């Protein structure tokens, strides 16, 4: 894994945006996998800025989101639909029909999951997938214990996750207990993976994911077997890494190498 350690959240977001931009320039019809949560928010803000100021276009891009809560309407402000439209889609020129997010209201979720997989395949597979990491090491909603070969499916949320979420909902019965999520195997098939993490709260799990055993107890650890995964971490999230100096050295050398080629 290429590990890029930067000063802070702002730089993490900018470096990530640079990578998305360069892939987009190489392939305007990029198939882009997206994530929700506070981690990629800065990346999305930077992409919006690039779109507005430098006319970076998403007109041919297709996007696939990692996950969505089951039972939430797209206009529910806790849904990932809402998050994505508010924080990215409505500010850029990606056509509505090119946006794919798991349907939280699917009548037949199982059938929907298969359809979602088929659509990814029809698009030619994911070119670049953005992922964050949960405190328990999950990517997407692939909680600890998820099969490392799993595909898009309905997943029960961890008790901790449900409890954390309850503060966002007026009534306890509104809190989702299930989500539709791309599987670990689905994510792993993306040609390239951009793994983002920031903050001291993530440092321990980041170290386990990048340098610990490959295990379904930390689903992000599977990124170790991906041929082209890039981790962009701020200093705080990188604090627990044992080979931090090597990663920094390798980045520096790689820059010289590219310059001299």
């Amino acid at each position, binding site marked *: *894994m290429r*590990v890029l350690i930067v000063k802070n959240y702002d730089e993490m977001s900018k470096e990530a945006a640079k990578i998305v931009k360069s892939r987009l320039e190489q392939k305007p019809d990029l198939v882009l996998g997206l994530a929700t949560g506070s981690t990629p928010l800065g990346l999305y803000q930077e992409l919006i800025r690039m779109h507005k100021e430098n006319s970076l276009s998403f007109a041919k891009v297709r996007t696939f989101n990692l996950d969505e809560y089951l039972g939430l309407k797209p206009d529910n402000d806790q849904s990932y639909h809402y998050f994505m439209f508010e924080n990215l889609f409505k500010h850029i020129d990606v056509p509505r029909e090119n946006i794919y997010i798991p349907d939280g209201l699917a009548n037949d979720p199982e059938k929907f999951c298969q359809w979602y997989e088929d659509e990814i395949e029809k698009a030619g597979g994911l070119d670049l997938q953005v992922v964050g990491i949960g405190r328990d090491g999950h990517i997407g909603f692939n909680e600890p214990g998820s099969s490392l070969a799993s595909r898009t499916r309905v997943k029960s949320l961890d008790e901790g996750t449900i409890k954390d979420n309850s503060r966002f909902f007026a009534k306890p019965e509104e809190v989702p207990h299930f989500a539709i999520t791309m599987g670990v195997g689905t994510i792993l098939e993306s040609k390239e993976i951009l793994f983002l993490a920031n903050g001291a709260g993530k440092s321990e799990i980041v170290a386990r994911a*990048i*340098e*610990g*055993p*490959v*295990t379904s107890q930390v689903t992000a*650890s599977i990124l*170790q*077997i*991906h*041929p*082209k*995964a890039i981790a962009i971490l701020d200093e705080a999230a990188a604090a627990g890494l*044992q*080979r931090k100096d*090597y*990663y920094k*050295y*390798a980045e520096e*050398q*790689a820059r010289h*190498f590219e310059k001299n*080629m």
Partner: protein
Amino acid sequence: MKVTILPSEKTVCCKLTEIIVSAVREKPDLVIGFSPASEILPCYAGLIECCHKKEVSFHQSRFFATDEFVGLDPENPLSNSFRLWSHLLSHLDIQLENVYLLNGAALNPTIECAEYERKIEQAGGVDLGIVSLGIRGDVGRNEPSSSLGSRCRVKTLAPDEATRNGRFLSHGSHPKFSMTVGVATLMAAKSVVLVAIGTGRAMILSKALEGPLTSAVTASVFQRHPKCTVLLDETASTFLKRKDYYKSSA
């Protein structure tokens, strides 16, 4: 994984020779992937002897090396290519066109690496890969944290002196980059022999064989290989928990 513990370094070399010779006899156009690591070079003497005695012919065998330093011309005595020629290739009845080595002086190392993967593929893949366990569990030049799905590419070498190659000490400067086949390239070999010699390898070998699958110890990936033989001497076996089992199943 077949773990073979042998009494000494010399017997490890003999066993390695035996494995290679019998594979070449069975398939004369064998595609051999081989390591230029210093620990393993003396082992190649056995192959030369067998070839001289006409016990085996490498006339149709094809050779691919695992790695080379960026910036070193094949004529440079410090290069892996030079060492492989002087320790092995020039003494065998090989055909020049069957030897494929990464060119350290390639103008574009990135392209050289991609081409090398293509050549391996065109040869039908590696039949027998000979790899040496590095001091940090690395195989080829796949430093810890290398992707377990990696293919041949340019890799930055760790800057710490302890892990550096002694032969560059007198040379003044150590190369900063290598070209190396990836972990996935090694895994794609139909059969693999992993060699570990000496007490210096004992701890890391136990991690590789009996520890978790992790890119922190790239050799751990061979736990998933369908046909991997590990050859080690007694001193390298010190920390293996299941040493008795390996010995009894030999």
